[in-house]
């Protein structure tokens, strides 16, 4: 055993933490090694001196002051303080973030050029060549569909549990019910000529002008510029011919065409009507057999309910029939002077310059809006900032 190891054991020896054999070992070495023996005595003195250090009594009033602090802590609701500060600051931060986002989205960024390009993109996306083809695809798809309601049994509690089941005729017989509507905005140089040409075309196609609302918009160089809103109905098979006709005749600014397939809805209603009619028939037979007045009244009531339902359905069916057979076009016509039309054909540099100025204006506008916004929300913002600073200081103090 070397004397260095003794040093390590010495400390544990005094704490009585050595195992028996280590202790024996230690004591044996002490007997043999005078150097370690001397060291041991010195260490013993040192440890004794260390253990001699007495506990001091807390200063007078220590307990009283502690008691007061504890009571103070309790009345301060110190129990939940930290949690409050934590969740409070999270909530405040969230509110600020939300208010900033919502206010920023309200700022309008003047980018005229962007919305313009969007319009033309929309115009391109539905080309007239494509549209009919799209309609064809839809047709085949729908024919393969199953009509769940056709096979369904109609259970009507009104007729004493009697069940009436009606199977509709083959799906192949069905006529597609597609409502075509168009929304077109055009510019023309000669409003009156355009309207008269359109009117002729409508009558040759077998349609009619449902509404014509013309007004003088403004006067430019002693020339009246008119604006019109027309609602035109044309037979549905002539719909695309007519759209093409308008496109050839004027400059289209905006065009959107919608084809709504109401076939399913239509035949569901149609089946309902047929079922109800059969029900009506049964009711009439029952009515003939009725003996008491009470029975007759009851059946009459039921008959009235069925009839009202049939009428309501028939009205919506005929409405669908009408809208499907005659397409609707909502046409906005804007008369522009020749000069105006010419001005639109600027060269690249002029357009670029205009765009540049637009963007600069937009940025300036945006900056102004931000300043206005910051000043306008400052009554909220400043207290929030002050509160956050106070919270921050408090947290740091802890």
């Amino acid at each position: 055993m070397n004397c260095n190891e003794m040093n390590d054991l010495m400390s544990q020896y005094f704490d009585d933490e050595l195992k028996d054999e280590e202790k024996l070992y230690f004591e044996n070495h002490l007997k043999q090694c005078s150097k370690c023996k001397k060291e041991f005595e010195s260490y013993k003195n040192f440890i004794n001196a260390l253990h001699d250090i007495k506990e001091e009594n807390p200063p007078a009033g220590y307990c009283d002051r502690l008691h007061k602090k504890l009571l103070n802590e309790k009345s301060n609701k110190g129990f939940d303080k930290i949690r409050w500060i934590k969740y409070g600051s999270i909530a405040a931060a969230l509110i600020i973030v939300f208010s900033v986002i919502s206010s920023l989205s309200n700022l309008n960024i003047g980018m005229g050029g962007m919305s313009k390009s969007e319009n033309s993109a929309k115009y391109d996306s539905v080309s007239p060549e494509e549209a009919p083809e799209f309609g064809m695809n839809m047709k085949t798809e729908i024919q393969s569909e199953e009509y769940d309601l056709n096979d369904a049994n109609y259970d009507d509690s009104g007729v004493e549990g009697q069940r009436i089941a009606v199977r509709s005729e083959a799906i192949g017989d069905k006529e597609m019910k597609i409502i075509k509507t168009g929304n077109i905005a055009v510019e023309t140089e000669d409003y009156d000529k355009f309207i008269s040409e359109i009117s002729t075309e409508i009558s040759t196609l077998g349609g009619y002008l449902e509404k014509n609302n013309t007004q003088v918009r403004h006067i430019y160089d002693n020339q009246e510029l008119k604006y019109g809103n027309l609602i035109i109905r044309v037979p549905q098979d002539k719909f695309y011919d007519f759209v093409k006709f308008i496109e050839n005749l004027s400059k289209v600014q905006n065009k959107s065409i919608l084809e709504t397939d109401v076939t399913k809805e239509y035949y569901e209603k149609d089946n309902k009507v047929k079922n109800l009619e059969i029900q009506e028939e049964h009711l009439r037979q029952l009515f003939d057999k009725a003996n008491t007045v009470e029975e007759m009244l009851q059946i009459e009531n039921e008959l009235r309910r069925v009839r009202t339902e049939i009428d309501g359905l028939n009205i919506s069916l005929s409405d669908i029939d009408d809208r499907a057979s005659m397409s609707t076009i909502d046409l906005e016509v804007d008369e522009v002077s020749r000069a105006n039309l010419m001005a639109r054909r600027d060269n690249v540099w002029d357009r670029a310059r205009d765009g540049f100025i637009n963007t600069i204006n937009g940025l300036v506008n945006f900056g102004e809006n931000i300043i206005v916004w910051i000043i306008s929300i400052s009554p909220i913002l400043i207290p929030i900032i002050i509160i956050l600073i106070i919270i921050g200081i408090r947290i740091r103090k802890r």
Partner: protein
Amino acid sequence: MKDNELWLIEQSRKGNVDAFEELIRDYKKSAYNIALRFLRNVEDAEDVSQEALIKVFKSIKNFNMQSTFKVWLYRIVVNACLDFKRKKSIDFYPIDELMNFTGSNDDNPDDMVDKNYTSEIVNMSINKLEDDFKTIIILRDIQGFSYNEISEILSCNLGTVKSRISRARKNLKDIIDAELYR
């Protein structure tokens, strides 16, 4: 652990100050003394120990009974002392104050000469140890905690405690020897 300690802990959790004071009756003197040995200043020792005890009161809800309450309490006290020292970082107490700081006044002067090591000089020299060693000397030799308790208070394993106590004592003895045989 006292018989009614569990009950007192429950009451303290509900915010009962009297129960809490009963709970810490036996511990607060030690808490004060640990702080005093650490900070060597009566006012600081009172502030820090009381702050630590209030922290114990506030966070007694979070005491999960995995260690004994005693160990948990002293852990908070030790950490409070370390935090306080870290904040102050510079030990600015003049030597005079250290000299006035006395352990036992009733010792016979002859004895002291004989012993070479007086508790007075040991007490002063503890302050020259680095914090880890100081902590362990205070807990082991002055407060008399067992090795197991110390390992729990300091959250380190028993082996570390053993070797650290041994090294701390050796360091302290070296410091004192250097003082004495200067």
